[in-house]
């Protein structure tokens, strides 16, 4: 197992990036745009009655797994949740396999058994029960600590998931046993229809502190800045110092499909915080070129997968 390359190679020195595109590679931007195109296409397929079951898109949150990916190594384990398409695409860059899985077509990553919320490939795994993956990630982290020191287990959860007892049982164990556990909280301020204020007394920072676990809050959508901010703490995770990283982020779309109960103002605020127009404004030519390519790629993937045999 090797640790990820030092971030200095990716960023331009230590000064704060002036625009979100400073120091961001084409690959990273393309990945964000691919995830955006993928999720938009999914909602479109749903509208056209072509998707079965349910799905939860990560529109607005695409930058989170892309930023994290720059801090993760191939030997790390990633645990995802119901809103996991971006997490998967950031890890495996496999829109074909994912769409086939969601649609139950040949080439599906998990043969169509798992669907949108239950995906496993190599060291990536998602489950649809909130909070369930934290204890499992502790088990994997315990394994890594003994047999592959330096590797970590990363778990994505939402803010609403902090209502689950499993989260605290796991944080307690991770802290007591010095496990290489990285908890990434995508705090989009809402759980299905329930705002954070109605779900959580206290704060995520306070809850991490209760277990003597380091907490970092990320308030920017600038991938390079995020990596720079988190790099030292993630390195410490590898030494057995668990970490909770809280992203203040925004869910642009509905919880699943057509079930957005937020006020027009709340939705407008979420849109105003979107990374997409900011990145577009920072370097319009480059952004437009990569965005067109990402959309064309996903369009082609969708056309291909839709025409495939059942899995």
């Amino acid at each position, binding site marked *: 197992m090797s640790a990820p390359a030092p971030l200095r190679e990716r960023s331009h020195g230590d000064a704060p990036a002036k625009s979100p595109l400073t120091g961001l590679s084409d690959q990273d931007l393309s990945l964000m745009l691919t995830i955006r195109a993928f999720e938009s296409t999914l909602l479109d397929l749903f509208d056209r009655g072509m998707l079965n079951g349910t799905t939860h898109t990560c529109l607005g949150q695409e930058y989170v797994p892309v930023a994290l990916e720059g801090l993760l190594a191939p030997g790390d384990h990633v645990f995802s949740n119901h809103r996991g398409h971006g997490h998967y695409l950031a890890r495996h860059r496999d829109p074909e396999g994912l769409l086939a899985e969601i649609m139950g077509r040949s080439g599906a990553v998990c043969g169509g*058994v798992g669907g949108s919320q239950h995906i496993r490939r190599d060291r990536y795994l998602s489950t649809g*029960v909130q909070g369930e993956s934290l204890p499992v990630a502790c088990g994997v982290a*315990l*394994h890594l600590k*003994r047999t592959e020191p330096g590797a970590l287990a990363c778990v994505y959860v939402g803010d609403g998931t902090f209502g689950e*007892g499993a989260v605290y*049982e*796991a944080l307690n164990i991770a802290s007591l046993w010095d496990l290489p556990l990285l908890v990434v909280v995508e705090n989009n301020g809402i759980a299905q229809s329930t705002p954070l204020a109605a779900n959580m007394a206290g704060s995520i920072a306070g809850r991490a502190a209760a277990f003597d676990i380091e907490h970092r809050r990320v308030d920017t959508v600038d991938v390079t800045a995020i990596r720079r901010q988190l790099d030292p703490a993630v390195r410490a995770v590898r030494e057995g110092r668990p970490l909770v990283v809280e992203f203040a982020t925004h869910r642009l779309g509905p919880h699943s499909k057509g079930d957005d109960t937020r006020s027009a103002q709340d939705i407008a605020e979420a849109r105003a915080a979107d990374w997409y127009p900011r990145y577009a404004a920072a370097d319009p030519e480059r952004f437009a070129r990569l965005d067109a390519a990402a959309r064309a790629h996903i369009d082609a993937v969708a056309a291909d997968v839709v025409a495939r045999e059942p899995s």
Partner: protein
Amino acid sequence: MRVAENLNAALHGLMEREPGLYLLGEDVVDPYGGAFKITRGLSERFPGRVLSTPISENAITGVAAGLALAGDSAIVEMMFGDFTALAFDQLVNFAAKSVTMYGERLPMRMVVRCPVGGGRGYGPTHSQSLQKHFVGVPGLALYEASPFRDHADVLAEMLERAEPCVLFEDKVLYTRPMYEVEPPFALRADGGTAEVSLPGVRPDCVVVAGGGVAHRVLDAMRSLLVEEEIVCTLLVPSRIYPVELELPDVRQVFVVEEGTAGGTWGAEVAHVVHQRHWARLDGPVTLVHSADSVIPTAAHLEREVLVSARDVHRTIREKLRG
């Protein structure tokens, strides 16, 4: 050797043979060695792999699943089997499901050990036999500890299945000697199902029972023989689910368990027996179990609820003699 020592020896042997095996549970490390002393001596011999955990049944089952996912194996000790209710999500929705829900078979080598059963006055939340709640979960196999099968074999078989397993250990067994059967009955214990019978005599009926109630059934078999000249053969399957039984050619079958009435393990056994042997049976399989009740603490009240040798005797006599 008593059952507790046999279990302890089995764990020692397995931990020694399998360097990737962990044992997790509340208060399992020395000198305490677990609430029932089954894990005695293990943490001193295998430091780092025998871990006392916080009181977090759900999380420790999840940690075991994580170890299994990463290619290790894990045994979890529930302090009392009743607390598997707190681990139900990890066991049913994660560990068992993971074996198949990701589209290809994923080996999950883990065992949850559960001390179950009453008879010791521990009361309603520390005396249950919750086997029935785990019957019929895809990817989850259930075993019951028995005085008639070496637990080294049982545990090895469970890990070899590479799917999550639950081992129900009736607490009254811990102090019982292994392999003890008094004449004129004889024990045949060479496979997954132990058989206790009257050698050379064709039985009037078969009694299927988990290891925990085996001795209650044996007491009833003795009194039925002496008082009624009824000959029974007892079958004690080590794996209780999925149900797989070879029955001798009899027309009456009984299933005895300590679980309370309603949705019982016995009902599942009966279903399997009916499917396979309906034509040759005199009637449906008869279920013998504890009452539809919580398990009271006071000894006289507990006795009324829990299945007893007398219940087994009475049910079989009524069925066969009318």
